Every structure is written in C-alpha cells, then in structure tokens.
C-alpha cells in the first residue's frame, strides 16, 4: 500500500456527515481495493471503530479487501439477461478463462464477477470488461473480446 496516497486521500476527505462511503470509494479508486491495513487509519480519521469500518466494507458487494486481477470481467446475471442466455454466457466465461465466478485466476490476470444488473436490460445479455460495457453478447463475441484483451 502506498502510504502517501492514502494520507492524501484522508486529507482530501475531512470528517463530515456520511463521509465513510465517499472515502472508501476514493481509496478503492486509487488503490484498486481497500487494503485491511487501511482500515485502522480510516477509522481513526473518521473517529469510528475499526469494526464499523470493516463492517461497512464487508457489507457492500462493491468494496474489495484484496486486489483484483489485472482485468476484471463482470457478467450480468439479472433476470433480463438470464432471459437471453446470461447463465450460459457466465458458464462459458468460467470455462474459457479457467476461473470460477467471484474468483481471481491464480496467475492474477483476471477476476470474474457476476453482477446484478448493468441497466442494459433491453440489449441483453450484457457484461463489462475493464469498465467498458458490452451488450447483445454471445459466447462467440465474448471469445473475440477476450482474445482482444489478451486473455
């Protein structure tokens, strides 16, 4: 962890009403995750207990306590995407990448995450890779996309 950037982030997010989530978002944006070592510093900064900070991080699906893979593939498995083959697409992604859902592949190259609803329900199934959205997906199109990303 980069102490300098964390202290800068803390300085940029002074204590105020409801400051914790914006600060956690800032930390995760800067570092890719919220490292456990940052928890006591955040707690002290906002006059919270470590348990409160940990409780918030672990409650929300969005926050990570460990670094994700170099690339992150999110496959939507909400009902609208299921109606267009999302479950098969997710299974295909798992097989193609050799990586189970909710896991980072052993070589650290990729993290595979099912997500609930990307808001592209009329263009299902949808997924996101490295923060870029893709809709009307098929296993063949996913293969091409992953090949382009070097996966």
């Amino acid at each position, binding site marked *: 962890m980069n102490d300098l950037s964390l202290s800068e982030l803390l300085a940029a997010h002074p204590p105020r009403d409801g400051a914790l989530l*914006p600060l956690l978002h800032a930390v995760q944006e800067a570092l890719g995750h919220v490292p456990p070592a940052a928890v006591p510093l955040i707690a002290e900064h906002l006059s919270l207990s470590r348990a409160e900070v940990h409780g918030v991080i672990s409650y929300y699906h969005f926050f990570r306590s460990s670094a994700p893979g170099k690339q992150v593939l999110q496959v939507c498995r909400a009902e609208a995407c299921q109606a267009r083959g999302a479950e098969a697409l997710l299974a295909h992604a798992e097989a193609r990448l050799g990586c189970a859902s909710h896991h980072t592949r052993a070589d650290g190259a990729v993290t595979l995450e099912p997500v609930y*609803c990307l808001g592209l329900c009329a263009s299902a199934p949808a997924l996101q890779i490295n923060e870029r959205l893709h809709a009307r997906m098929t296993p063949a199109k996913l293969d091409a996309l992953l090949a382009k990303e070097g996966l």
Partner: protein
Amino acid sequence: MTSAIVKVFVPRDSAALAVGADEVAEALRHECQCRGLKVELVRNGSRGLFWLETLVEVQTPQGRIAYGPVEAADVPGLLDAGLLQGGEHPLRQGVTEQIPFLALQERLTFRRVGVIDPLSLADYEAHEGWAGLRRALSLDGSAIIQEMLHSGLRGRGGAAFPAGIKWKTVREAQSAQKYVVCNADEGDSGTYSDRMTMEGDPFMLIEGMTIAALAVGATRGYIYIRSEYPHAIATMKEAIARATAAGFLGDSVCGSGRAFHLEVRKAAGSYVCGEETAMLESIEGKRGVVRAKPPLPALSGLFGQPTVINNVITFASAPIILARGAQAYRDFGVGRSHGTLPFQLAGNIKHGGLVEKAFGLTLRELLYGFGGGTASGRPIKAVQVGGPLGAYVPESQWDVPLDYEAYAAMGAVVGHGGIVVHDDTADLSQLARYAMEFCAIESCGKCTPCRIGSTRGVEVIDRIRFNRNNDQNRAEQVILLRDLCDTMTHGSLCAMGGMTPFPVLSALNHYPQDFGLAAPDQAAA
C-alpha cells in the same frame, strides 16, 4: 453562400456505448474530416429504441432522419449514400419521430431524452427547461404542494405513495434542516428509465429536486446513484456543476435568495439500499440495514431530519406538472393511476426499449404492439412485471389494464415499470429458486423472515424440483413453501423479504408443471 454545417446525433447513453456508439462517432468524425464534410456531432441521450442502437440521426429540412443499427464499419457506406442529406440506405429508418414505436408514445418526462445534448443548458432551456422551476419560484410552498396533490402523481419507485402527501408531511415538519434525497439506486432487473434520464436529461432531475426543496423548505439534497451506473454518475456530477455555475443551484436559486445545494453520492452494490431507509443508512456512512418504520423518513429521515425521498422519475415529473399545470398531467391515465409511466421492455423481446404511455394500456399491447414478440421468435411464456420482486404474469392476465389497483388485485405489482420477457424455454421453478437465492444474497439480515426464510426457500424449492419420485413428499414441501412465503410476506420489515413471495408464488401458481407438479393450480393450495 456558406455551406451549412450538418448536425449529426450519435447517442452517448450506456446502451448505445455498449454496442459501439463511441466507435461510430469516431468513424464519423474521421470520415467527414477526410472528405472535407462539415458536421457538428452532438452526443445525445437515447431515444430508447434499443434494437436500433447505435441510432444515428441527421438534421434535415424534413426533420431528423434516423439510421440504425449503425456500426462503425457502416459509416463510409452511409456517407456514400448521402447520410448528411438523409439519403436512402438499407439502415435508414425514416423521420425519427414517425417511427411507430416512438410515434405511438405519450412522452412527458422523456420528451427531451434522445432529443437534446444532455449537458447543454441552452438546449435544455430551449425545450421547456426550467419553466416548472420558474413557476415554482413564483408560488409559495403550499401552492406547489397543491399542484403536486392535484396532479395525482404517485411515487414511481414502486410503492406508489402519493408524492404530494409526502411533500406536505415534510413541509409541515418543524426543523431547522430538511433534506431532499433522490433514490437513484435503480437495481431492478428490467428497469433502466432512471439511468436513461440521468444520462439523457440530467437537468430535469435537478429541476424537479429543486422544486421539491422549495416546496418543503429544504436546503440540501443528495442523489444516491448505484455504482453500476458510472456514466450516470459522471453526467449528473457535471450537470450539477453546470447548473450551479449558472445559478440554478447554490446559495440563491435563480436569484431568489433561497438556497439549494445538491450532491451525488455513489452507492456500493447493495440491492436492499434501494429501500429508502437502508439508503439513508448508506448515505450516513453505515451498513445499508433497513430501519423499522415509524418514524417515517418524512419526519425523521436523513441524519434524523425531515426528508423528502422520491425516485428519479417522480422528481423528474415535477417540472412538467408545474410548467403545464396539474390538470394537464392528471388528465393522463385511468382510475387513480394518473399521468404516464415509462414502461421498460426488456429480456427476450424483439423491440426492447422505453415506452412512455399513460396508465391503462395492457401488457399485451406492450408485448406485441410495441415489443413485437420475443427476440428468439418463440412464444412468450412468462413476463415479470415490476422488477425481481414482481410477479410472473401469465398470458391469461395480459389484457388487464396497467394500473396500480388492477395489478394489486391480481397479486402483481406495476412497480417501477420494468417488464422482463421470457420465452417458452424458461423454467419457472428455476426462476422462483433464483428469486429466493437473490433474497438470501441481498437481505440486509435485520429481520429473520427475510434472512433465514430466503435460505430455507431455496432448499424447499430444490426439494420440490429434484425429488421427482416422491409425490407425497413433494406435496408436503409445496405446503411448506406456501407457509414460508406467508411468513415472509407478513413478517418481513421491508419489501425485500415481503415481496420475494410474489415471483415465487406466481411461478408456482401459474406454472406448476415446471415444478413437476400436476396442474391444476389449486391442487396444492
């Protein structure tokens, strides 16, 4: 004579970006530069005709001409065919507003979405923007609320509580600090109208929230937007910055001396934070655990202060109600369901997209008249209306008018207007299991019926689905499942546990054969 610059529109809505709109825009820019053609590229919102995205429009003397679905590779051919003059091409869809899917709609809140540059204050102003706010500034708070009450507007987030009554409660509460909070945690599958609004017409939401603030005497507002919507977050932040710089927000709204400050808060992927009290906890920086009610958030909401909480479309309806008058809005709809709802066609549907219509049309009109049936070409089997906690509606009920009371009477919900279509390959017992599994994953854990009931629900459904050789045991498990659903319905603190039985029981009642049960429906009741 100077050669006119042609206006070309390429959407920047997420659903367009997801099928290559940026690449189309770049190809257009590049090709036009190479050919010495002068174009002004506008990145508009989406018209909501998603099967035609990327929908490129060209401004011509005949009106805007649409082409779609356009891919980057189509651009040279389109320009060869005279795209900039509205020339013939296999992708040409004609005058945009005359495309039947669009022409048959009654767009009020979506009248600007896809039409204007979302971040252009001049565009917004030129299309009836701020007219509602200006009228609100000439009224006192109770007169604004009177307009809202008379309009008949009910919350579009799902619970359908009259917006005017909520605002009145907050106005009458005594407190030095009041808040306006927009619940933009649109987490329901099959819904995307909030996202389209925030990406395609963000000033409308700002205007609506500002009207609410004037009505109740609030000076601070928050928009809680889900983390899965980064484009909506970026657009709203930029719109707030521009509106503030232009004096529509800040210490003195339009020079009135009345303050309203607005801020975006990013959510963190918890579905239950779409429930209003869980959302308040989240904005306060805590785990998104629901609060018991009372007290109502209108009296003791954010940081314990009186708070107006509505969803995006509810706030976004306020400007047109103020601008055109409550009666004009009230005249749309049927029964006690006044105005319009942006219905969102999704899932296995040929023409998926946003249909804003007055209440009272039927699901069948939406599915076939607008949607054109399934994308797979197979028969429609089940339609989930109102999000993941909404019922699966079978064909026998597709002619019931879409109206809050009519849907409640048949054990279904209109909700936020999401409509997810499944063809005949869908297994409703699997979807019922998914509903329970989803509740188990997303439950905040505070109340037992939701936390434990959903886990048990998955197990019971599995025993029904996989124990196919023991009819008696299966019949017992069905009774158990119904009992469990009853407990969840009546014992849960919020809609998460309380409504999960809607999809489960509707699947069981209308599609018993998918559970390996012999029809008729009543057998297990």
